[in-house]
């Protein structure tokens, strides 16, 4: 049995401490030049990982960040926890009602900004498989994954852009937020379906069983679970220590739900995401509690996760510029076209529609999490992972300035 010995504990704690402090320094430096925090964290991972530090000082790198053994297993455990919690907080910001009440423009935009990139991404893999690397028996799953990768948006980045451009209260702003929520919701549900499909291609019964399980679990949690959480929250706030009670019960529910979905053959992220929606929807969840949960996850676990991405692959060796360009232009083209078309059909002007298109084009952390999970699952190779990370970072940086051009 692999066990953490004295030296392993020192290495693990020192690595985590160093990562957290350096990630904060990189993030704050990045902020000065308007770089998304996640970019600073990934850049640190690239520097500390095999790309830079590992190439120059392989022995030292292996001692600090071992590739095998107990420390590696412990670090992998922490990053798995992190991704579950990141999906949990992403779920907390999904407000189905926002989409329901925004009317025709939001419905059109939400639908086209999801479905058009998905179809085009799927078709790119299906009809031009030569551009992509996958095992022949996984063509369908890979195509589905790539479609989803083209379709996701990143609500936190988008909200940040809205803040910078002061678009919260505008029609364009509300349409973008509603569509991003829809894209997040459908994207993660579809992705957990794709992950569940891996290894069961061709087994129609299993596919239908998986769809049934996702729908059953989703509906149960969003109706019964949501109702129960909403009823229980005032009792927790009144009778348990504050905010500790809410924090521990919330994260406890997140892990239990994630464990349950993993147990029934769906991915843990689905459980975390759906329970996040159920908790975030509660009218009793106070703003301060919401902020504390976000602060805890975003500032402790997110840096560990995003820095660790740089340890996974050598970004220089796996930088295939043709693939990077293909993924980037396909992602931007599909999303901007899909979202703008929806906005235009929904009654926005051409300029407003383009602003919506570029706003929803920001992929940010969500795309990177998606790519990491696909890489861990062995669905994509390191080159595609690097291409997705580069696309996510660039789209996050260009969305704001491009949107600004179309806002009067």
């Amino acid at each position, binding site marked *: 049995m692999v066990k953490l010995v004295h030296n392993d504990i020192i290495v693990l704690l020192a690595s985590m401490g160093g990562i957290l402090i350096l990630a904060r320094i990189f993030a704050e430096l990045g902020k000065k030049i308007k770089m*998304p925090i996640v970019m600073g964290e990934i850049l640190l991972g690239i520097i500390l990982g095999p790309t830079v530090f590992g190439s120059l000082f392989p022995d030292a790198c292996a001692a600090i960040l071992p590739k095998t053994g107990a420390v590696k297993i412990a670090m992998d455990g922490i990053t798995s926890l992190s991704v579950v919690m990141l999906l949990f907080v992403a779920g*907390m910001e999904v407000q189905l*009602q926002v989409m329901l*009440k925004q009317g025709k423009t939001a419905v059109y935009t939400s639908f086209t900004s999801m479905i058009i990139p998905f179809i085009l991404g799927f078709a790119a893999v299906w009809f031009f498989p030569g551009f992509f690397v996958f095992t022949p028996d996984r063509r369908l799953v890979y195509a589905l994954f790539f479609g989803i990768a083209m379709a996701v948006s990143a609500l936190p980045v988008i*909200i*940040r852009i809205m803040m910078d451009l002061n678009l919260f209260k505008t029609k364009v702003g509300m349409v973008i937020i509603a569509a*991003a929520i829809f894209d997040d919701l459908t994207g993660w549900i579809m992705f957990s379906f794709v992950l569940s499909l891996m290894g069961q291609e061709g087994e129609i019964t299993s596919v239908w069983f998986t769809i049934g399980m996702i729908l059953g679990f989703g509906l149960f949690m969003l109706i019964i679970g949501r109702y129960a959480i909403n009823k229980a929250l005032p009792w927790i706030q009144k009778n348990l220590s504050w905010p500790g009670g809410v924090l521990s019960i919330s994260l406890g529910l997140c892990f239990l739900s994630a464990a349950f979905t993993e147990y029934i053959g769906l991915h843990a992220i689905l459980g975390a995401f759906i329970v996040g929606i159920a908790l975030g929807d509660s009218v009793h969840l106070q703003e301060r509690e919401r902020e504390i949960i976000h*602060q805890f996850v*975003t500032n402790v676990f997110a840096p560990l996760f995003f820095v660790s991405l740089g340890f996974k692959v050598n970004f220089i060796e796996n930088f295939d510029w043709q693939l990077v360009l293909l993924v980037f232009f396909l992602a931007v083209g599909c999303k901007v076209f899909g979202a703008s078309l929806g906005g235009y059909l929904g009654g926005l002007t051409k300029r407003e529609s383009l602003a919506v298109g570029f706003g929803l084009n920001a992929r940010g952390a969500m795309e990177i999490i998606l790519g990491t999970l696909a890489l861990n699952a062995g669905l994509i190779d390191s080159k595609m992972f690097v291409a997705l990370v580069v696309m996510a970072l660039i789209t996050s940086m260009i969305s704001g300035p491009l949107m600004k051009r179309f806002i009067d």
Partner: protein
Amino acid sequence: MDLSKLKKRPAYPFETIAVAVSFSPRCLPVLAEAKHISDALNAALLLIHIGEKTSEKEQLLDELMNKAGMDDSRYRVIWMEGEPVETILKLCKLNIVDLLILGALEKENVLKFYLGSIARTISRRAKCSVLLLTNPMEEPRRYKKIVVNGVENPKTIHTINTAFYFAKHLKSKDVVIVNEINVPGLAMAIADQSTIPEAKEIKKLLDDEIQETIQTIIGQCDIGDINLNSKSIKGKPGYAIRKYAKDRRADLLVINSPDTQLNFLDRIFTHDIEYILAHLPCNLLIVHSRV
């Protein structure tokens, strides 16, 4: 009846008021409140009963009307059989009713709420303003404190003006215009990359914008001598204002009519007016502005 008169008809004044008569124990207080309001607004009052017209019911209604002080020609009774919701809505349309008054429980049981009680179903679908009375009195009280939803919506200016019109005629003194702040994803975005001063600045900016909007609307209204305040509160739209009205012990909450046709799903994924209908904090005036 000339139904074209309904189109673009202003939200106020309330020239014709209707009240639904159910012969429940609260029938007399509801009639007394309806009379008080119609007298104050100088409006004609229709009494609508959906059900069979029998001599016993006629006699009982005469007694109730006498007790409520309804003894002149301004009060007309309509008897009609049929499905209550559809029939009441149809009668309101045919008689160009501006305000429909209904008695309503503060809270329905879960099953009834989800299936839809008569008063709540009418509130969701009516093409005229609706006043739900949660605690009607035989000796009507004044509507001292009125809370109005100042949500950003083209209808809001009409709703606020209607609230002032109502407040002036019913001698109300305090009106508070409340706006709810709810930005999905804000906590996540702030947690991601904001210092404490930056986070405070963002929240202040949101608050200032809302206050500015409310002040612009107020500037277009005829306030008279009403003591007017404005307030922005954080929370889910509908729930936050319901809680505010309850905590402040408001006598009347005034809101816009729904923008879309509400259905069962809106009660499952509760939002806006559905939070209020789920548990009425006080009397509720839903203003249908026909814009």
